[in-house]
């Protein structure tokens, strides 16, 4: 596995006066599954389009396997692209669609037939070779598009929100299928999505986009547990943000003083010094709820009153009004239930919180 198989170096894209991608650096290793995650208009799709060659690069360089490909036309980039709307050729049968990239490469007919069959079997559509795309369901069409993008063994597979048009169940099935293909074939996949669950489920690394810049690029666990800034913390998952001032830093433990006088000890981003303004990001599922005063020794405590509980099937959402503001906790169904108006103490350990810059 060679590092830096694909490199984006100071890549910029302008549409007229609007800068959609700004000075972006990103390295992707061979065989890696990287998700580009972000709200719409954050530049993630534009970056993919530049990599595929559909959009020109305004500044910087895109390097594939040691060669700059800024000016290489799309049809010579050897990248399989899977589109959200499938982009199957409606006038060709399924088999013809999948054979298309092989024919374009002048592969002998006898070999084409075998590879098409293999690719369609891989996505469990071997029986539908003679149908037209219009006669297939959305999920089947997307599987054909996947087979078509993989059949010519491209150097990279690019996916532009490929599951966006599918219903939830099918989407989850396809997520697992794609992840399985990735592991089995050792593919390098760059996957654009605005669905954080999808990114968390499938990726080796997630690049979180906002305003044309990468906010954080790390493993799903890292991005979720240790967001690098407020945008990432809020965009991925749900979180409670508490504002305060750093009063002490000891190793990896930061002491944060809240306006009400409460002090919390928590892990956080490096580089904080006493006196800095900071935010504590506290995931709802990392908070424990106790009867008032019953919190164990050594954990951070905050008292409050339950104002709302929402039944959500597998868990309860409990809204607690505290001196530091409203905090949402996600409580396991096996724990005790809390009535509105009950006085409670919220508790969390230092490793359950994460301090970021405001």
């Amino acid at each position: 596995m060679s590092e830096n198989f694909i490199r984006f170096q100071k890549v910029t894209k302008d549409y007229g006066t609007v800068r959609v991608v700004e000075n972006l650096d990103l390295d992707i290793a061979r065989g890696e599954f990287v998700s580009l995650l972000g709200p719409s208009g954050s530049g993630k799709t534009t970056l993919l389009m530049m990599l595929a060659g559909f959009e020109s690069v305004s500044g910087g360089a895109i390097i594939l396997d040691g060669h700059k490909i800024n000016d290489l036309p799309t049809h010579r980039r050897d990248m399989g692209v899977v589109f959200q709307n499938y982009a199957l050729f409606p006038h060709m049968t399924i088999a013809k669609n999948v054979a298309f990239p092989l024919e374009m490469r002048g592969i002998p007919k006898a070999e084409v037939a075998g590879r098409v069959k293999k690719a369609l079997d891989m996505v469990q559509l071997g029986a539908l070779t003679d149908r037209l795309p219009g006669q297939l369901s959305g999920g089947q069409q997307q599987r054909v598009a996947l087979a078509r993008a993989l059949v010519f063994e491209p150097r990279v597979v690019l996916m532009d929100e490929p599951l966006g048009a599918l219903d939830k169940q099918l989407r989850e099935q396809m997520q697992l299928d794609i992840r399985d293909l990735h592991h089995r074939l050792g593919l390098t996949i760059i996957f654009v999505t605005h669905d954080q669950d999808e990114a968390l489920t499938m990726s080796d690394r997630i690049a979180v986009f906002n305003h044309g810049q990468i906010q954080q690029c790390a493993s799903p666990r890292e991005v979720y547990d240790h967001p690098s800034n407020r945008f990432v913390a809020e965009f991925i998952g749900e979180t409670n943000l508490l504002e305060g001032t750093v009063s002490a830093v000891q190793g990896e433990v930061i002491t944060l003083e809240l306006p009400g006088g409460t002090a919390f000890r928590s892990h956080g981003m490096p580089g904080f010094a006493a006196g800095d303004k900071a935010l504590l990001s506290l995931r709802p599922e990392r908070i424990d709820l106790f009867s008032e005063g019953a919190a164990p020794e050594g954990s951070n405590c905050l008292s409050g009153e339950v104002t709302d509980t929402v039944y959500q099937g597998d868990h309860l959402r409990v809204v607690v009004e505290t001196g530091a503001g409203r905090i949402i906790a996600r409580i396991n169904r096996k724990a005790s239930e809390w009535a509105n108006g009950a006085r409670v103490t919220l508790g969390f350990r230092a490793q359950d919180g994460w301090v970021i810059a405001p």
Partner: protein
Amino acid sequence: MTGSSRFRSSGFRALILIAPLLVFLGLFFVWPLITVITQAVSDPAVSRVLPQTAAAIGDWDGEGVPAPEIQAAFRADIAANTDDQAMGDVTRRLNSSKSGFRSLMGKTVSAVRENPDIDLAEVDKRWADTAFWKAIQDNASPYTDAFLLASLDMERDSAGSITSMKEGTSANFAILMRTLWTSALVTLSCLIIGLPYAMIAASVSGWKRAVLLGAVLLPLWTSLLVRTAAWMIILQDNGIINQSLMGLGVIKEPLVLIYNRFGVVLAMTHVLLPFMVLPIYSVLITVPGNLMSAAASLGAHPVRAFLRVLLPLSLRGVISGALLVFMASIGYYITPALLGGAADQMISSVIADYSIKSANWSMAAAIGLILLVLTLALYAVYNRLSRDPIQAR
């Protein structure tokens, strides 16, 4: 009120509502069409003057001299006729089928008027010849295919079989072929301009698309005569094109751009271009925009992507557009009449000549009918080809 009567009354009300349209269609479309078709195949000259003969001779087997009853009917018709001019028409018509009738009929008419019961063989021994009776039988029917055949430069010889007319006697077939050829040229030039135009219009968006579509629709919003007159001004010997080319020193003599096939094809292409562009455009607009991107990412050079993806997908629109343009072209009259020379007139001007100048309604109707059949055949093709291939399964 019962359900069925309520249904009947609502059906009746609906009928009243569509009645104006039905009456309009019947009066101004169906009835004239039937009249034209009837006119094209009817030839009542003989059957009107010789009604009893026409009724009696229908069953004659053509062997030997006709039975006395038929001869009696013939004598009775001659005796009953008072219109010498109509009888003259009959004589002419019969003479054109079998020469010798002119003198024979003259002799017979005066003989029968003197003695209504005279034996015809005594008047002239030619009445013993079956060929003359055959000519009467052939012309006795009120219906004829002579006009339709003449529209295609064909006729029936004395034996009744279809043959081509002598060369130089009629140019209808040649003009029909010229009409089809000119229409094909117009269709081709519409396709050459219209296909890339529609592709560009479908690929841009916003005001660019509005301008492109507006430009192509503009000819439809101007009067045909105004447009044709504009072309006359532009194309004439001292028109804009010739003036500028001579001013630039490209040519010394003015080019002949008008009163020839070039002017006709150019002006007709201009008028009919929307009928090519719009069907292709409407097909292309339904093609997802990223199919060409997909083809490129799969390794297709832009030219191959065009040939394998965009062109096949636009084919349905191309076929619709080509047939629309072609069908509209074969009926064109004003543009060839004003911009073409004598050798560029199309079949519609022949129809106009027959109906306006020589008042030969039957020939005008017959050519019109042939044009109608041609158009309907093309329409059937159009209908078949423009069906959705997936729905057609």
